[in-house]
Structures are given as C-alpha cells and as structure tokens.
C-alpha cells in the first residue's frame, strides 16, 4: 500500500516496545459489539494509481466541460481565465500541506500571504479591514447579518429581493435557529432595481439591509441612498458582491457607504469546481467594528529581534478561546483559495483588473446587443457589468437550457431554477459573459436560442 511506510518487521518491533501482542490489543477499549472481524464488506479492496485514475476519469467524462463548449453560466460562479502560475504556486507543498499558522515562526509564508490578501480585499471593497476569508459568499452573507445584529443589538434584517436566492435561503435557514427576523422579498422584474421599495422596508428595529451589487439579475445601481436611509435609522448596510471582477469597472461598495461588504471570491484564481471549495470575502469599512468580525485575522507585529513578522490576532473573538461566547463557530477559513485569489490578483494588479473588467463589459455589451435581436427575446437590464437577464417571451427557460445543453451549448442559468414557483421568472434566463467568451460563442448562443425558442413554440 503505497501511502503506508511501516513494514511488518517495523510493526512487530513497535508492538514489542508497546508490550502488545497484536494490533487488535490496542483496540481493546472498543466494545465487543462494535468490533469488526475484517475489512468492511461491500467496499472494494485497495487499488493501483492507474486503476483509480481510470475510474475517476470515467466519472469526469460524464460532465460537460465549460471550457469545451460555448458557455454563459454565472449566478454567483463565474468562469475566468486563471493564469498558469497560480496553480503551480498553490501546489507548492509548503503552502498545500501546511496547517493553520498557529506556530507563526514557521508559517510566515502563509501569514504574509494572508496579510497581502486582507489588504487586497479591503482595497477592492473600499473598506478598512478584511478578514483572512470564510467558506464562501453565501456563508459570509449570513455572518454579515449575524455581525450586524451584534453591532446594533437588533434582530431584524431586511433582504433585497434581488439578493442571490441561495444566499437568502442560507440567511433564512440560520436565522430560524438564532431567532433573528428576516424580511425577504421576491425580485421585482424591472429594468432597474426597486431601491425605493427596499428603503421603505427599513425601520427602527432593522439591524441591517442586505443588497447585492451587481444584483442577481445583473443590474447595478448607486447604493449611496440606501446607505443613507439605513444609517438614518441606525441600521447597517451590508453589500454582497458575487463578481469581484466587476469592481475593476464600477465603484466599490465602501465608496457608496456600505458598512460590511461580503462576497464570493471564486472568480479570481479558484475556478468553477462544481460549486466548491470557494472563497468567502468579508470586510468592514469602519475599523471600530473589527472586534465584532467573524473568522481569522492576520496582523503585523515584530519578533524578539525586532524583525517584522505576522501572526493570527484578536483570537479572543474565536471559538478556541471563547468557546460558547465566540463571534462565530467557524474554525477553518479557505486558506488555499485565498492564496489562489491573491496570486491571481497580484498578477493582474490595478491595471490588469481594470483591463479584465473592461474586456468583460465590452463582450457583455456585444452579447446583449446580439441576443436582443433574437426574435422573442428582450434584454431586461438597462445597466449591467458582465451578466444580464433575458426575457424569453413566455418560453420556459429551463427547458430551453436543457435543450441547448443536449446540443452542446451551456446557455445560461434559468431563473426558474433559482426561484421555484415564481411564475414570472420561469421565462427569464441569466446570461454571463467573461473574457473567456468569444464572439463566435455569442453567435452560436444567438442561433441556438433562436432555434430552441422556435422548437418550443411548435
């Protein structure tokens, strides 16, 4: 067995040292009823590297690979080109096989990287401080709501109707158990988000209002009035971003007055991976809120010789010190994904991020114009970054998506899948365009969409 270095001779010698006759003597504390008499039945025995690879490749071959077809899916997970050096760096054993940096003298690599990551995220979001990452955007969104309830000592959160429905579901699920009140809504299917309606829902009991930017339908709008309305009632503004590349083109949430900014960092460095592992980003605009933040924080300090170094800090917020009084039960972060994000962001830099964002937006505008020409199709959005909503004139988007997938085109995300039971959204299709999309891909999508709509009409 290739991962087990002990030989039988070693085992015999070690048992002798221990004073045990057989290895089963080491399991004497297991009650009789629970002891197994051999390898667990119904599972295969060990296999060679070649055999395992064959098995796994067969499974992989049953999936339609995004990079091999015209591909337009988004809705919180975006396909971007990841430079080759990102993967070689995250596969270095010193990063890949390290643990949480609890022994900082021999973990400065991870710690300095996290300090750089925190700085990049804070600047991207227009905030003062970011943490060392959380599981993903949806769990970060819940943590933001929980933090807002701690800061304001209020228990009501107002969710925008255009918040990613999975994120809203996570928040509602968690709140059921904590006793917080969540006021959610359905998205208004309008060219621009209904911010007036949202602001009208903020009251004196509101801990926070949660708005996605760009929102689930791809729309963008100035959130400054929402920040003002929230602050006027003593509430916090939580802004959720699922596409960090957008912030290379548009104003940051911090600049518009957001108090807590959270999001999904998967777009940079991490890849699609069928939904995980991803990268939860979490930042606060005002440094006074730092001690209410969840998750790990890396801070600068000096060593005994006066050299600059980094450590995990403010851990009195965390479960291993505070136990049942911790700000969150979170233990792990998403370290290796944070490294991937940071390396990708370092390669891009300010200039690369702006160019990448501009290229995404250029192609998205091109796609929106071309798709608007498909008979029966209408573009809902007036403004968008790299994702927009198509109304398919009464055709069920889900069937059209499946039909196109059968013909090798991954044409978008059907909003009916995300909003089951909302009739108006059954005919809406969310289309994302990135720098990986070619003009040919857009043409293929336009043609296939036209064909599918015609077919479904028959």
């Amino acid at each position, binding site marked *: 067995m290739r*991962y087990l270095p*002990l030989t039988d001779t070693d085992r015999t010698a070690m048992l002798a*040292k221990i004073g045990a006759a057989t*290895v089963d003597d080491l399991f*004497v*504390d*297991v009650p009789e009823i*629970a*002891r197994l008499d051999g*390898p667990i*039945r119904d599972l295969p025995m*060990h296999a060679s590297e070649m055999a395992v690879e064959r*098995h796994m490749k*067969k*499974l*992989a071959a049953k999936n339609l*690979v*995004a990079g*091999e077809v015209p*591909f337009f899916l988004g809705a*919180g997970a975006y*396909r971007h080109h990841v430079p080759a050096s990102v993967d070689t*760096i995250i596969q*270095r054993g010193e990063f*890949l096989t390290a*643990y949480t940096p609890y*022994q900082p*003298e021999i973990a400065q*690599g*991870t710690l300095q990287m996290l300090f*750089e990551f925190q*700085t990049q995220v804070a*600047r991207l979001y227009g905030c003062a*401080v970011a943490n060392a990452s959380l599981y*993903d955007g949806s769990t970060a969104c819940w943590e933001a709501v929980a933090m807002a309830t701690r800061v304001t000592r209020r228990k009501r959160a107002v969710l925008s109707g255009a918040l990613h429905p999975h994120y809203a*579901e996570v928040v509602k*699920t968690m709140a059921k158990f904590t006793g917080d009140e969540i006021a959610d809504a359905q998205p208004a299917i309008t060219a621009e988000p209904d911010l007036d309606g949202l602001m009208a829902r903020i009251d004196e009991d509101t801990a926070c209002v949660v708005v996605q930017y760009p929102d689930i339908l791809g729309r963008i*709008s100035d959130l400054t009035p929402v920040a003002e309305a929230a602050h006027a009632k003593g509430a916090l503004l939580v802004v959720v971003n699922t596409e960090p590349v957008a912030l290379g*083109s548009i104003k940051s949430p911090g600049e518009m007055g957001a108090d807590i900014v959270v999001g999904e960092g998967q777009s940079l460095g991490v890849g699609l*991976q069928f939904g*995980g592992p991803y990268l939860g980003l979490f930042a606060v605009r005002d440094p006074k809120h730092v001690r209410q933040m969840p998750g790990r924080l890396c801070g*600068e300090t000096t060593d005994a010789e006066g050299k600059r170094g980094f450590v995990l800090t403010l851990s009195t917020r965390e479960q291993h010190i505070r136990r*049942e009084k911790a700000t969150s039960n979170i*233990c792990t972060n*998403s370290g290796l994904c944070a490294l991937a994000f*940071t390396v990708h962001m*370092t*390669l*891009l*830099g*300010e*200039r690369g*991020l702006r*160019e990448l964002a501009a290229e995404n937006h*250029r192609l998205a505008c091109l796609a929106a114009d071309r798709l608007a020409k498909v008979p029966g199709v209408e573009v809902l959005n007036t*403004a*968008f970054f790299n994702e927009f909503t198509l109304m398919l004139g009464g055709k069920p988007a889900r069937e059209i*998506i499946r039909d196109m*997938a059968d013909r090798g085109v991954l044409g978008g995300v059907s909003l009916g899948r995300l909003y*089951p039971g909302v009739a108006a959204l059954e005919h809406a299709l969310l289309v994302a365009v990135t720098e990986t999309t070619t003009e040919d891909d857009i043409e293929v999508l336009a043609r296939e969409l036209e064909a599918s709509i015609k077919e479904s009409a028959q």
Partner: protein
Amino acid sequence: MNAPNQSGWKPAMIVSEDGMHSGPQTTTGNRALMLEEPLLFEIGRAEVTGVDLPPVDVNAPTRLAGLARSEPLGLVGLTEPETVRHYTRLSRQNYGIDLGFFPLGSCTMKHNPRLNEKIARLPGFADVHPLSPQNAVQGALEVISELGGWLCTLTGMPAVAMSPKAGAHGELCGILAIRAAHEARGDAREVVLVPESAHGTNPATAAFANYRVEDIPATPEGRVDVEALKARLGPDVAAVMITNPNTCGLFEKDFREIADAVHEAGGYVYCDGANFNAIVGKVRPGDLGVDAMHINLHKTFSTPHGGGGPGSGPVVLSEALAPFAPLPFVRKDDAGTFYLVEEENREERGPSFGRMTAFHGQMGMFTRALTYMLSHGADGLKQVAEDAVLNANYILRSMEDILHAPFAGSGPCMHEALFGDKDFTGGLSTLDVAKGLIDEGYHPMTVYFPLVVHGAMLVEPTETESKAAIDQFITAFRAVVERALAGDEGLKQAPYYAPRRRLDETAAARKPKLAFEG
C-alpha cells in the same frame, strides 16, 4: 546578535564560546537559502500587470449606470517572473507535511497524495459550473453519490448530508438537524451537554443554535463521567456532543451505554468525528448509537489543509435525523439518472431544515477524498487506522518514562498521545518545548489543548510516517523534554533557527495592524 542562551546547551552553528562561528551580518538580511521577502505592496506597481489583456478603451460606450470607477483601487501588480519568485520565496518560510514530521494532535497531518490533486484538476471536475443543467453534470452528481455511499458504509449510518463546508459547519449541520427533529415533534429542548475536553467549536456550535451549553466532567482516567452524564439527562437535554476517540486520545468505551441513556431520555447523540481516522475501517460509529457525526475529509481522508482550509465536513445521519438534512441532496431515479433535490422539489425535500450554503458542497474535496478511498479500499483503510494507532502508542510508550503522560494508565491510546508539563522546572512550559522542537526541524505538536491537562501536548503521528522518521522524532523530543526538565533557560528564547524568533502576539492584538498602509 544576542547570545542565544546562558545555559549548558550549545547551539552548534551560530555562536560558539568564543563567538567565532556567529557569522557576519549580511547586507540583505538574507542567510543563504533563508531569504527575506518584502510585502507585495512594497514591490508591486500600479501600472504593472502579469496578464496580457486588451488595453482599456476609455471611449468605449458602457452601460454602468454612471457608476464607472474614477478613483484607483490602490492595488499593485507584478509580472509573472516577479510573482512566481515572490510567492516561492514566501513558501520557503512555511513548514508543511512535505518537509517533515508534523505531529499536530487532532489535526491529522497525514501525507496528501498527489494523485488526489491530479484527479481534482481533471477538467470534467474542475471546469464544471454548479448550476449546469443536471443532464450535463451526471458524473459530478455520481461522485457525490458514490462518496456519500462510502461514508455511509464506513460509518454504518443510513444517510449523509454532503454540503457542509468544513468540520465546524458539519457540527452546525448536525446540531441544526437535532433541533429541527425536536421541534418537529413539538419538543423544543434547551440544553446541550458537552464534555470539558471538547474542541471549542462544540460549545460555539451549540450556542449558535440557541442551546445552553453545560459541561460534563471527565473521570481521572480521561473519559466522560458516565454517571454524572446520566444524572444530568432529562426532558430539557436535546443532545450530547461527544468526540470519539476523544481529545485525550482515548476511546470512549462506554459510548454505547451513554447513547442508550441519551436516547432513553429523548435526546440525540452527536459524535464529533474529528478523530475518525483512528477507527476508520475498524469500528462503525453507527454500531455505537450515533445520530449525527461530521467527518473532516481533510483529516481522515487526506485532502490538503492548505494553510488553513478549505475543509469539507459531510455529516452522516441516523434514520431519525435524515429527513431533516439540509438541501441540496443527490438522488437517483429508477432509470439510473442522478438528480438534485433543491428548494423546488417541494414534495421530496420533506422537512429539510433548509440550506447551509450556495451550491452543493466542496466538490474539489469530494474528488480528492474519493480518490483516496478508492486507493486504500476497505483493507487499506483498516490498515490506516491500525498504523496510526500503532505509531501513537509507540510514541506514548517511548516518552512516558520522562514526560508526564496523565492517561498512560488508562489503556492504549488511539491515534494521538497526550502529555503534560507537570515536571518541567525553571519556569519552562509547553510553549518552550514546542519552540525547541521547531529548532530541531519539527512542527510542534498541538499545545494547550485539551484544556483538561495542564500544559497539554497532543502528539498525533498519523500512519504516513516511517518507523525511522518516528524514531528520529522521539530522539529529538526526548532531548528537548530533558532540557525542559533540567530548566534550560536557553529554551525560553527558542526558536533560534526559524525565519522569525518569537513574535509579539500581545502587541499585535493591542494595536491591530491588519492591512498594509501606504
């Protein structure tokens, strides 16, 4: 440079008695292969990029609702060669399993097979969108289903929730299922019992779900006090959370009796499966009366720790809790087609307590863990547990003559050996031994956990170490411990040879500097 110690112990290389071998200060601060590296923000430039993209056309029309960015973000870039060098140099200031023995108790730092990495990067897994139409992702759904099948069979449990993102998220899943199950029968309860020796996530999780946490005492032999626990059971107790094997490295031999008593009192049994690696293939937790148990794929099933995540924490569930599992879950229809049960499947979702995360869980970890399971098979996994336990007992018996081992008389340990600092002299502590081991080229063991032992040192060798590697560690560990027993002052300044000396954590917390300024 300060003289490293005033004791009898002599570091071989840096300072000799006459100070001759201390070596000159270097201009750069580097010491040959030990390289200093500035922060990205000190070397990067705003106008530099390592990615070739079309330049921004400032005249191109936009549809950005007047929100086009006018101010710079304050980010900096590096070209590819600079980027690779920057992060490669940083990587060399890290200790990892690939470099050496990493006996971090309870964290299970076993070898991370490279086949796992290769498989996870197949485009058929890595380049697949979570919301692809289900007819286009049958292989991905099959991986989830197949891995879930392995987990159920290995644990002897009927169901599994795959979406939790890490161990603590899995704990939360289990406790929320327990709360949902009680509430469904109109029996809301208030208390969760947690042993004193539990990991901090256990009380934090129970508190999150609005339970009051009460400690269960331990016996002098390091196990749950069964009588005290039974005496506390009653109609207000929703669940007990017990780690088995426990954080003292012992098997809870009365687990079945505890589980029966808890069930009798209408409660549920949550087992923290952080230490499942000690018993995988040897014992099925389902046979011990468990209702819910999370499994850290990054511990037992070898997915990399990555400097602190990502983890993955699927939760196996009993028949009683299975209906409350979070969305989504994978099912197979009569025609053999896999499908996801999500919010829209109103009938099939049943009393599910809701959703814990967007999408379907840590797919990238699922492919790695399944690769590992297939590699080992049922026979190999049994051997994994046996070798892990053998290695830990070997360390326990090789150290107990000089190092306080509070539970050495409580029977064999499981996958980890627990020691305390009772006999150290001269004001030396566990921390000093840990830092001394760094100089010897080891990552220290887990220190000051569990809290029930003074100056705890929890040593977990795992099964992927050779006897030679363990013997060498024992020699080094004994040498450092002997210095602590002798009150060697020099140990208080260790480490001497790491990229950094001891770091001032108090100053870091007093005036937090959490981002680069400038």
